[in-house]
């Protein structure tokens, strides 16, 4: 019998934990380091791939994702070596997707060709905003112009280029966002990630917010209006949301991220990386040490960097399947839901169908357009208390 993860696919995530500076909103595992010994990092990544490769040998790999931090600070040779090693353990699908997250500065654009030659097929660029004042407020090191030039380089080198914007920024009006979004759609090739600014605990913005000093954030109504406008404008431009914050032309969706949302298996390598691996018939959560120095040390001395490797209970797996899957416009497959024990939530789900937050159609359970902006409430309703 097929294991559940196969319906979601299999991918490799590689975390690069360094940035040139720390953005005030960002709670990713990223650090600013004076010097980085790329050769040593290479050895550690390859050792980790070998370790997990031996456990999952022969699985068909659909995607590799270099995330960060700022992976566009990696040497092209390092990226190439990791891709090579992965291919040694896992056969890849024909149209394997290999994405690298890039910051849009000129220095980094200079490495794009090298990445492509090493096997990268797609870049995702953190452009964040299209005007300099807002970029400064977000603590970004690049100007809008510089980002545009980096983007131009990228589209010359890669077939697939996506970029990220953050909206619902301080003092941003609905009108300003609509205009900026239309401008972005004019630039976009076939994929866009549009994130509402989230104030995360433990970030500079988080501290300022808690101290009551982060002003001009939208209230719930304005945030909802911005979200709705985003849906409408992108839909009309042929780039509908296939996930809460991700928009693409049909067929141009990020395959890697879909592995997460379709609740497949993924190997997570590098400081703070998480993975989901079905081994011996049980899905496991893995999590690597977050501190870059300690992670290196662990890999070196103990042979692996993970600090968590634990079996998920059936309930945990069911919960994750739903909380990931309902983010997708396509929703979750009812057969899989049932097989994972989703029957226990039938009453809750039916109640939410009654109030038109969820719908069952074509053998799937998914959010209605009304349910999408309140996904968290729907999830609380499904998972119940």
């Amino acid at each position: 019998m097929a294991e559940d993860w196969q319906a979601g696919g299999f991918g490799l995530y590689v975390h690069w934990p360094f940035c040139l500076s720390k953005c005030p909103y960002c709670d990713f595992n990223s650090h600013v380091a004076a010097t980085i010994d790329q050769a040593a990092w290479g050895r550690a990544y390859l050792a980790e791939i070998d370790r997990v490769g031996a456990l999952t040998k022969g699985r068909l790999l659909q995607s590799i994702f270099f995330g960060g931090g700022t992976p566009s600070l990696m040497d092209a040779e390092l990226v190439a070596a990791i891709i090579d090693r992965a291919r040694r353990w896992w056969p890849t699908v024909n149209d394997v997707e290999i994405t690298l997250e890039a910051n849009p500065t000129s220095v980094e654009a200079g490495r794009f060709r090298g990445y492509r030659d090493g096997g990268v097929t797609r870049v995702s660029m953190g452009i964040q905003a299209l005007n300099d004042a807002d970029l400064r407020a977000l603590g970004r090191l690049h100007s809008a112009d510089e980002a545009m030039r980096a983007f131009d380089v990228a589209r010359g080198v890669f077939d697939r280029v996506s970029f990220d914007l953050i909206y619902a920024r301080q003092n941003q009006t609905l009108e300003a966002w609509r205009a900026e979004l239309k401008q972005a759609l004019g630039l976009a090739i076939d994929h866009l990630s549009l994130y509402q600014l989230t104030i995360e605990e433990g970030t500079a913005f988080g501290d300022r917010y808690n101290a009551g000093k982060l002003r001009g954030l939208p209230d719930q109504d304005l945030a909802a209006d911005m979200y709705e406008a985003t849906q409408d404008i992108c839909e009309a431009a042929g780039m509908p949301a296939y996930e809460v914050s991700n928009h693409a032309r049909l067929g141009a969706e990020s395959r890697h991220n879909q592995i997460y949302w379709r609740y497949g298996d993924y190997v997570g390598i590098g400081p703070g990386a998480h993975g989901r691996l079905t081994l011996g018939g049980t899905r496991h959560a893995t999590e690597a040490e977050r501190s870059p120095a300690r992670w290196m040390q662990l890999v070196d001395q103990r042979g692996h960097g993970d600090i968590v490797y634990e079996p998920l209970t059936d309930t945990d797996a069911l919960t994750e399947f739903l909380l990931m899957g309902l983010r997708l416009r396509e929703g979750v497959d009812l057969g899989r839901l049932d097989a994972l024990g989703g029957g226990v939530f039938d009453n809750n789900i039916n109640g939410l169908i009654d109030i038109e937050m969820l719908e069952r159609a074509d053998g799937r359970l998914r959010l209605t357009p009304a349910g999408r902006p309140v996904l968290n409430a729907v999830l609380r309703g499904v998972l119940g208390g």
Partner: protein
Amino acid sequence: MTDLSHIRNFSIVAHIDHGKSTLADRLIQSTGTVQDRDMKAQLLDSMDIERERGITIKANTVRIDYVADNGEKYVLNLIDTPGHVDFGYEVSRSMRAVEGSLLVVDSTQGVEAQTLANVYQAIDADHEIVPVLNKIDLPASDVDRVKEQIEDVIGIDASQSMLVSAKTGIGIHETLEAIVHRLPAPKGDRNAPLKAMLVDSWYDSYLGVVVMIRVMDGMIRRGERIKMMQTGAVYGIDKLSVLKPQMVDIAELGPGEIGVFTASIKQVRDTRVGDTITHEKKGCETPLPGFKPAQPVVFCGLFPVDANDFEPLRDAIEKLALNDASFSFEMETSAALGFGFRCGFLGLLHLEVIRDRLEREYDLDLITTAPSVVYQLYMKDGEKRELHNPADMPDLTYVDHIEEPRIKATILVPDDYLGDVLKLCQDRRGVQLDLTYAGSRALVVYDLPLNEVVFDFYDRLKSVTKGYASFDYQLTGYQEDSLVKMSILVNDEPVDALSMMVHRDRAEMRGRAMVEKLKDLIPRHMFKIPIQAAIGGKVIARETLSALRKDVTAKCYGGDATRKRKLLDKQKAGKKKMRQFGKVEIPQEAFISALKMDD
């Protein structure tokens, strides 16, 4: 056993925050009862809630050894009492166990409402009273003015007042000497049959039930068999101790002494505060008069959030009631909330404290229904009924008339705020009984309906007078008025736990305040929710809680699955603090908060 002539028993009484517990600290510390390194501020306030709120809730006893200037060794039993109105019963009960009182008055504030209330109680208990003017270290201290107030307002001699700073220790030695020389020694006959007063009791998770007694006559020793005269229960004394303030074992206690014992008491109900304890054989004939039972004035339902917690709740309530004779309870069932208890309290703070203690000390999650006072229903068929719960209000066609409890409220307020206080009392259907002046302050006496006072009157009074007014009240009786039951409908379903009795003329205003409050207290749902107040079938106020518009996490990738799952699990646990009414979840704090008005 200590000779009677060398025992002094006293309570420390005062208005809230005038420094009773701090004075107790200094008396304990300066006599070496507790080592300096073990001292902390308000040492006797040992409960978490007391430390958090900075107030005393339970009276606490300490035995102090003191060698006076005359070279003689004395045993002093000190009882620190609470100052807030809601805990007045603790004070009156404590006073029965001692012969004198230190009346603490904050010399920067002067005589306040509870100062008066406590003095009257002390006089009632035939106490010798030593006035202690505290906080003389502060620049705002005005000793002469306060002495004058004590003489004018209370009518006792203040010339011999102790001048003290409980904070810095000024006047502590003099106070100890005054205790020895001005307070009377207890009386009693060590050869008479044992007669001891059960002053307090509590449940200790290691020792079981601990009973505190004041011996009046005779001797009590470890190992003896004793009888509780009222309940008839007989027990053998396992452990006999005095409180210093931790338990220190002692072989025997004689007349005038205060101590505690344990006796493997299984039935929590066997120990009634005010009962008389004597020996099983050759006991005394007549019991002590006992205490006047406390009259609960506010009632509410307490229900476990998790229906399986009913038995643990019963157990917890019984144990707490042991420690608090002013709290009453009986079983109650509700269609929406299942099995629980209808509980009576001396006021809203008392209610909050008991609920907090049940939740913390016994690890329970509780739903509290809207508090209510007790109404007298005169039915058309001549029957008379007590209404503790608005949900039980019968159809008006069967009711001839309704009476509600009234109080006599005494308020002391600086001139500047008098107008605001009068307006507040007037708005709350008050009738002025008296208005006199004591220096630059007015002493206002009002007749008020209790149901206009219990929920938030004290808070409002504090806020309109910037904390300068003080307040005390006594129940006076019942009076007929035009009262109706107001129901609250959430999403078109009546929520019994929120219904309340109101005066007809005030109904619309209260109804509007309630629905506005609830609109803030109930979180937005995925659909819009009408919230209405109604009398009979007639809606008198309405608000609509708009639907939740946006609640979605922007980013959720491979690394976020664990975090998001744990967050949802936590929210699921937090949901226990919510109660489902139809499709709507109402947070438990809504039931009390909705009643507090901001007029």
